[in-house]
């Protein structure tokens, strides 16, 4: 009988930070951040914990890490706001929870978990935020979620659009 194993994979899109702009210091920071993320998920799996709790723990660390485009460090809309989306899915019974277009809860993935435990699958905007508030999840304000690189990326993208320059960088079409 094969020995049961556990496995974890995490990722983050590089977004508009092109390889040419990557410095050794930045690279080291990303590697260190990814190791913290893996450690959070492994800690759950090593102790025989559930996969759904492991992926939630890993994504919470990714959301708290300003280097990545989720939670703190999320990108901006063309209106200069931040609107966050998140989802979880449990392979045991295909229970799923998702939120879209929310601002305030520090960890949108935790709000998605609340939705997974509700009759709904997807909840958008204010009702999702109210759910998070009622559950006592931690909230942040604009300053908490703000990072200079994301704000700069917004200005650059808006300037490209204003000048009618076609955005040739595919990364500008995704998170």
């Amino acid at each position: 009988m094969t020995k049961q194993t556990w496995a974890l994979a995490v990722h983050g899109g590089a977004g508009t930070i092109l390889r040419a702009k990557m410095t050794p210091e930045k690279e080291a920071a990303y590697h260190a951040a990814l190791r913290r993320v893996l450690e959070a998920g492994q800690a759950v799996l090593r102790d025989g914990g559930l996969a759904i709790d492991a992926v939630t723990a890993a994504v919470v660390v990714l959301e708290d890490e300003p280097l990545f485009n989720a939670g703190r460090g999320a990108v901006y809309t063309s209106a200069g706001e931040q609107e966050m989306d998140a989802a979880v899915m449990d392979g045991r019974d295909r229970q799923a929870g998702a939120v879209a277009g929310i601002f305030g809860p520090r960890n949108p993935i935790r709000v998605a978990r609340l939705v997974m435990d509700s009759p709904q699958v997807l909840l958008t905007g204010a009702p999702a935020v109210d759910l998070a508030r009622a559950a006592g999840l931690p909230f942040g304000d604009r300053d908490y979620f703000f990072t200079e690189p994301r704000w700069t990326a917004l200005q650059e993208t808006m300037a490209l659009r204003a000048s009618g320059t076609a955005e040739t960088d595919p990364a500008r079409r995704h998170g």
Partner: protein
Amino acid sequence: TVGAVALDLSGNLAAATSTGGMTAKPPGRVGDSPVIGAGTFADNAICAVSGTGHGEIFIRWTAGAEIAARIRHAGQTLEQAATAVVMEDLMPNDGSGGVIAVDRAGNIAMPFNCEGMYRGTARRGEAPQTFIYR
């Protein structure tokens, strides 16, 4: 966008994805991350998938569910299914991005078709690994 997929010691699979979306997106625009079957999918009998990329294309090509369907109905391996969707379905249709996926045997696939991606893996009995742009 960020995400995680996991297999636990009881053989359960799960996926989680979170994002701020696309830089300078129009207010109200929602991408693939919270669309179950597109950017996030998990079923113990098949695989768990988390995607990051051009959301509209991941939604229209139901990326997560398509990978699971290829395994379930066409008998493809996780690597074959994930690579086919990312390279043959998404990329030709302006679907820049990639996925991470794990199956119930603990195999991990992480194909991507864009310039950059940050990824990490860990498995029982193996040292964690992190990859940047590779």
